[in-house]
């Protein structure tokens, strides 16, 4: 049997059995999962030996290595030589999460993380970085027996993505919700147009893709950052409405790239964009988009992130629009109009959790949360890009889980997201990290949310964020965990450039899409959205701390307005304080974000974190809706950045 030959340190458990297992084979052999090709990475020789033996006993084909770099080399040299990777988190030469990201980006293989550390924040990190599973050491053989499911799931997911456009429903729950969301949310004609145009494109692509879908396994195209940037540039040049694979391919002019590659990449990109911009306010939508499984924690999370939201929602004073505008702003669509036509009601629902008492010091924290969220949304698109493709599959898969997890796990997670978005502001939001992580998140979120292309979801989040009264950027600290993620990934993401590209792309794209329309359609509550919107986008891209606060203040209306302003002012006046504030919050929240991670200059990367936050917020919000008392779920404490 030829297992991709030349693998080092390969121990064959049962040679004959592996023959039947083909990587990427569309069918599973009768002996599956025997012969599953596992690469296990752990610097501890004791554990490594034990794992090897366990895996062999499961009839898997095991390759062990004790260094992450060697593992990467093995994976690169044998592109289709492995089915799954198991890696320890703490390794001397390379952080396990970094390896995880690399693998996801380059090879798109399922990766299982392991660690003796079972603290929530580390597990969360695994989730947000896209690990398909997380095992606590000491690992038992029972835990390894079922790892094959991740391989199957991933493959299945990839195949489903192809069908996505056609069926309009994907494996993931959130995707399936889209149709519902579309139906429910019909506030904007534009939205309909957007959907139509998207459908048109989808149909086009469906045609093209149908031919390809028959081949389940194609040689993988690695969407490197440069390639993706080229792609985005081409898409932007064409305009999202007109961006068809053929033309994109022509513009990109990359030898060896096929229309199919571009088509599937475009599909993912669209999902990403949708997710970023089309978060539906609608409860269903939101729920759907957020993996549809509101977790209690989510609620708590939202409380953290969306403290303001809730407050706003609770009061019912938050006009959908303001939220929408916030979102829009968050998304950084400079061109989009501030008014987002999100049904107010929906928004309210989102935030109906009730006045979640701003847990964090009121103003500041809230602000942070909100800003973060906004930035998150904004960031999402960006993040998506680099990793989008690579991790889309992964993220789609894991994202849903991650999101859920994010929300469930944490409100902390959410807050983290929120905070992540903060990167702009002094917050250490590791743009890089965020990017990587965000790319993960957005993908799933995008998928879920995109359905209606209703920015409401996003807006809602933003809105909530905005509503945060406090200028405090607590999220920053909270997002530490999120940040952590990003940080590790930062290396992976060529980062800064992407966000720009994506931002610009997004800006142009999204406005075209729903956001704009929606924004325009609803005049209410757009108080200053346009400005905020612009500000947000601008801020996101360039400003660090200020943007969050400023935008928030301006965009918020009414009730929160005053509070926000207060916070804004604080923020505006003392941009430098943000960092301080953050740090103070960080302490309060027991979330330690490594603020210094990203230099302010990396505004772009900031986006990533933002995205993350937004998604989290959304999920948190969704959760909250389902959950009455979020507060209790708020468990910030767990996330301390151990970066």
């Amino acid at each position: 049997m030829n297992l991709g030959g030349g693998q080092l340190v390969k121990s064959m458990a049962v040679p004959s059995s592996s023959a039947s297992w083909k990587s990427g084979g569309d069918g599973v052999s009768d002996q599956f999962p025997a012969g599953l090709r596992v690469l296990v990475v752990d610097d501890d020789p004791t554990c490594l030996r034990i794992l090897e033996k366990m895996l062999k006993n499961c009839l898997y084909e095991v390759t062990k290595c004790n260094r992450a770099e060697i593992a990467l080399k093995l994976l690169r040299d044998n592109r289709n030589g492995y089915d799954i990777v198991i890696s320890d988190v703490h390794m001397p030469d390379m952080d396990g999460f970094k390896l995880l990201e690399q693998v996801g980006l380059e090879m798109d293989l399922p990766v299982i993380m392991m660690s003796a550390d079972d603290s929530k924040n580390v597990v969360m990190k695994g989730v947000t970085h896209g690990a398909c599973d997380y095992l606590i050491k000491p690992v038992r053989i029972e835990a390894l027996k079922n790892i094959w499911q991740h391989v199957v799931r991933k493959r299945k997911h990839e195949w489903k993505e192809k069908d996505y456009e056609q069926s309009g429903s994907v494996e993931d729950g959130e995707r399936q919700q889209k149709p519902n969301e579309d139906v429910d949310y019909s506030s904007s004609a534009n939205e309909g147009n957007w959907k139509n145009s998207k459908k048109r494109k989808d149909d086009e692509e469906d045609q093209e893709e149908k031919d390809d879908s028959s081949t389940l396994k194609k040689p993988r195209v690695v969407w490197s950052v440069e390639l993706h940037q080229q792609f985005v540039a081409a898409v932007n040049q064409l305009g999202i409405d007109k961006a068809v694979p053929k033309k994109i391919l022509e513009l990109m002019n990359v030898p060896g790239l096929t229309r199919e590659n571009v088509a599937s990449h475009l599909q993912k990109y669209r999902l990403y964009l949708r997710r970023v911009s089309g978060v539906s306010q609608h409860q269903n939508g939101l729920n759907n988009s957020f993996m549809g499984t509101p977790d209690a924690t989510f609620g708590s999370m939202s409380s953290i992130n969306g403290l303001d939201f809730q407050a706003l929602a609770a009061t019912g004073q938050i006009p959908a629009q303001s939220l929408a505008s916030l979102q829009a702003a968050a998304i950084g669509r400079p061109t989009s109009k501030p008014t987002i036509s999100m049904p107010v009601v929906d928004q309210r629902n989102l935030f109906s959790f009730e006045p979640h008492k701003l847990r964090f010091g009121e103003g500041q924290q809230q602000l942070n949360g909100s800003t973060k969220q906004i930035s998150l949304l904004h960031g999402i698109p960006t993040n998506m890009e680099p990793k989008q493709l690579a991790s889309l599959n992964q993220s789609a898969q894991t994202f849903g889980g991650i999101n859920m997890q994010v929300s469930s796990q944490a409100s902390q997670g959410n807050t983290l997201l929120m905070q992540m978005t903060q990167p702009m502001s002094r917050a250490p939001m590791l743009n890089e990290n965020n990017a990587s992580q965000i790319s993960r998140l957005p993908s799933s979120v995008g998928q879920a949310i995109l359905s209606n292309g209703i920015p409401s979801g996003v807006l809602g989040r933003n809105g909530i964020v905005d509503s945060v009264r406090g200028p405090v950027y607590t999220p920053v600290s909270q997002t530490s965990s999120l940040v952590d993620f990003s940080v590790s990934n930062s290396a992976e993401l060529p980062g800064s450039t992407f966000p720009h590209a994506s931002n610009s792309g997004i800006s142009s794209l999204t406005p075209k899409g729903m956001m704009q329309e929606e924004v325009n359609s609803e005049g209410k509550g757009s108080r200053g959205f346009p400005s905020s919107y612009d500000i947000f986008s601008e801020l996101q891209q360039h400003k660090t701390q200020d943007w969050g606060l400023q935008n928030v203040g301006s965009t918020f209306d009414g009730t929160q307005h005053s509070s926000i302003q207060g916070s804004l002012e604080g923020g505006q006046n003392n941009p430098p304080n943000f960092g301080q504030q953050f740090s103070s919050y960080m302490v309060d929240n027991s979330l330690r974000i490594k603020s210094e991670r990203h230099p302010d200059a990396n505004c772009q990367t900031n986006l990533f974190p933002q995205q993350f936050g937004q998604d989290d917020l959304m999920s948190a919000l969704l959760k909250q809706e389902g959950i009455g008392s979020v507060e209790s779920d708020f468990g910030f404490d767990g996330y301390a950045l151990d970066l």
Partner: protein
Amino acid sequence: MERYQHQQQYRQLAAMRRALFDQGYLDDQFIQLEELQDDANPNFVEEVVTLFYRESTRSIQNIEHALETTPYDFVKLDNYMHQFRGSSSSIGAKKVRYECTQFRDYCKARNAEGCRRSFHQLKREYSTLRKKLEAYFQFARQTGPSETACRSK
């Protein structure tokens, strides 16, 4: 006679083994290792435990060295101990793992004196476990590998 002696020895070995569990030196993870042992790898458990000794010696040396330089680098110490804890848990060294956790707690609390005391305790537990395991494996070899080394329950 021989058979009887062998049975006696086997029983003795089994008792030794049980004591290790009852007294808390080993936990369920050790059984996992035993279950992995088979005809193809008849000395798997001992092989792994030997790997553990090697790693532990290195970890202990690292920590000792780190404890000589003041002020303590608690992060580094924590990292070393994290590794040590991981490997000790993977073979089921229960008491040793416990001491590792204690040490890490002191690291987190930046309690230098606590670290020292805890490390001292850790070394003692490690040394005790090692002696007992070595005696156990030696006796197992004497008693008869096929019968005692594998799946002794």
